[in-house]
């Protein structure tokens, strides 16, 4: 199968504008702006069945159609915060196939009538932001961005904006606050960004990978896109594979590919003949899947992954082998969320703090069985009470770890002693 997103793996110089042009680059943008109405573009994306690749899997065309047409100006914001532990796909797209991403931003902007688009990158992507600035300048020079594109009335400017180290800024409303020059703390939703977004104006927030699919869909049509993937989860997805595998990395595969194919065929299996124990399919925010044969044969799509007790999310597949004890993994994820909680609501701020205290006692002091039960109880108390999904995310590994890998916690209690 030819690549749709990671095209630089076949065409290494695709980050150069003339090479990108030679391989069909900007034809989709030109087609959209000169031959299609914004509504037609949105309809085509709707028909493709493309769903958001940032984690929530929301239908992209539908989101665009929600933009409030009685309130202007409109904005498009590309979410390039990529901070979920285990996720490193947007970075590869921007570093190696930047024009396809930028073309996607431009088409989305045209579809929703935005004349300004921002790319919000995590602060650590400093060199990537500078690289994209250069690519944007090249597009302006070539007439693909700027005033009156292709001789029409449509104008568009794209700007990069660097965050400064905060996982929560990947949450779309925290991202918008941050872009407005405030602390990155989530807003109460609804209203959702398509009615109240950047500067209070209708805004589409889409993930980098989501947007990078768009030029293909417009150039080839929704039906062409639907030949990949499944009926309900059409298209291709980049799976970031990490942890205990021989060949970690990004793999672009049709949605519906099984865990087994990803981990054992593409990823080369588990190192040193060890056995696979658990899978986190959505990064650190994920519940643990017990790596049974049935689980390994499960297709990775939005509908099937819940059948084995997790979500597809951003498809950042972390593999854990049988040399690893799950209480150690849970300590890592709790540390992460306690560190990244923005502190705006009490259950998340206090809950992650208490989970940290408890897991540290269980692992490093004279923790008891009761404290393991209490840890799960605290996690359950956090659920359903938080302003944003980070609170929920912080409980996923905790609850599924204690429920599905109880012996590891029993052992931790039995062997831990005061240091």
């Amino acid at each position, binding site marked *: 199968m030819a690549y749709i997103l990671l095209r630089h793996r076949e065409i290494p110089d695709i980050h150069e504008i003339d090479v990108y042009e030679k391989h069909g680059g900007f034809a989709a943008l030109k087609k959209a702006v000169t031959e299609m109405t914004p509504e037609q573009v949105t309809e085509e994306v709707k028909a493709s069945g493309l769903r958001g690749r940032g984690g929530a899997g929301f239908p992209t065309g539908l989101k665009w159609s929600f933009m409030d047409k009685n309130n202007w100006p409109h904005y498009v914001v590309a979410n390039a915060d990529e901070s979920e532990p285990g996720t490193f796909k947007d970075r590869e797209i921007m570093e190696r196939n930047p024009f396809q991403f930028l073309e996607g931003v431009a088409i989305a902007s045209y579809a929703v009538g935005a004349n300004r688009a921002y790319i919000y990158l995590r602060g*650590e992507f400093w060199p990537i932001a500078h690289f994209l600035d250069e690519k944007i300048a090249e597009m302006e020079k070539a007439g693909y961005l700027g005033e009156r594109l292709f001789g029409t009335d449509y104008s568009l400017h794209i700007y990069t904006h660097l965050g400064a180290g905060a996982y929560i800024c990947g949450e779309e409303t925290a991202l918008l606050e941050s872009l407005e020059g405030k602390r990155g703390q989530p807003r109460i939703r609804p209203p959702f960004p398509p009615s109240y977004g950047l*500067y209070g104006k209708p805004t589409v927030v889409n993930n980098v990978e989501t947007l990078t699919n768009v030029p293909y869909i417009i150039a080839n049509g929704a039906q062409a896109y639907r030949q990949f993937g499944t009926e309900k989860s059409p298209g291709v997805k980049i799976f970031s594979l990490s942890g205990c595998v021989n060949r970690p990395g990004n793999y672009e595969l049709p949605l519906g590919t099984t865990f087994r194919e990803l981990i054992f065929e593409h990823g080369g299996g588990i190192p040193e003949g060890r056995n696979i124990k658990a899978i986190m399919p959505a990064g650190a925010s994920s519940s643990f899947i017990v790596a049974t044969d049935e689980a390994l044969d499960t297709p990775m799509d939005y509908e099937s992954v819940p059948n084995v007790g997790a979500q597809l999310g951003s498809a950042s597949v*972390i593999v854990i082998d049988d040399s690893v004890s799950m209480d150690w993994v849970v300590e890592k994820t709790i540390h992460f969320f306690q560190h990244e909680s923005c502190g705006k609501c009490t259950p998340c701020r206090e809950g992650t703090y208490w989970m940290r205290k408890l897991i540290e006692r269980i692992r490093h002091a004279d923790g008891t069985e009761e404290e393991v039960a209490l840890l799960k109880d605290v996690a359950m108390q956090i659920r359903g009470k938080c302003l944003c999904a980070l609170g929920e995310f912080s409980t996923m590994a905790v609850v599924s770890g204690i429920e599905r890998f109880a012996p590891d916690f029993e052992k931790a209690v039995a062997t831990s002693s005061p240091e």
Partner: protein
Amino acid sequence: MSLAEKYPQEVERILAKYPPEHKRSAVMPLLYLAQREEGYITKAAMQDVAQLLEMTETEVAAIIGFYTLYHDKKEGKYRMQVCTDLPCALRGADQFLEELCENLGIQVGETTADGLITLEEVKCLAACDKAPMFQLQSGEGIEYYENMTVDKTMELIEALRKAGKEVE
């Protein structure tokens, strides 16, 4: 000298990114600019940013405090930020950091005696398939070093040390 005097073109370019009525959006890029020379944001620079954007000093301080890549204290010339988050830790990042500490003779959070390196532990940097890895942050920006070993890291530090001496 104020930021606008020191870097007139850059300040102008940054402000031009945002609608004029929303210039507060420029606070993050301006804080990076303020951090460039010293590697941290001085009180004067903070006041300067506040004035430029018609924000209060407290508001600017709250931004600096919220985000981990802004610093209000002088530390080593380079912050070596090693990722020990779950995927990297599954590939030996904890041990890498421990050995690095031994080799440098400092603990996480400390700075080498010559003021060159401050060692820090950070969360996922979107390079999980290339662990062990770290980033080097200085006033000038951020650079990734991936698939590292302790030996390669010590060589890098030596090279940075030499480069620093030549400049002086």
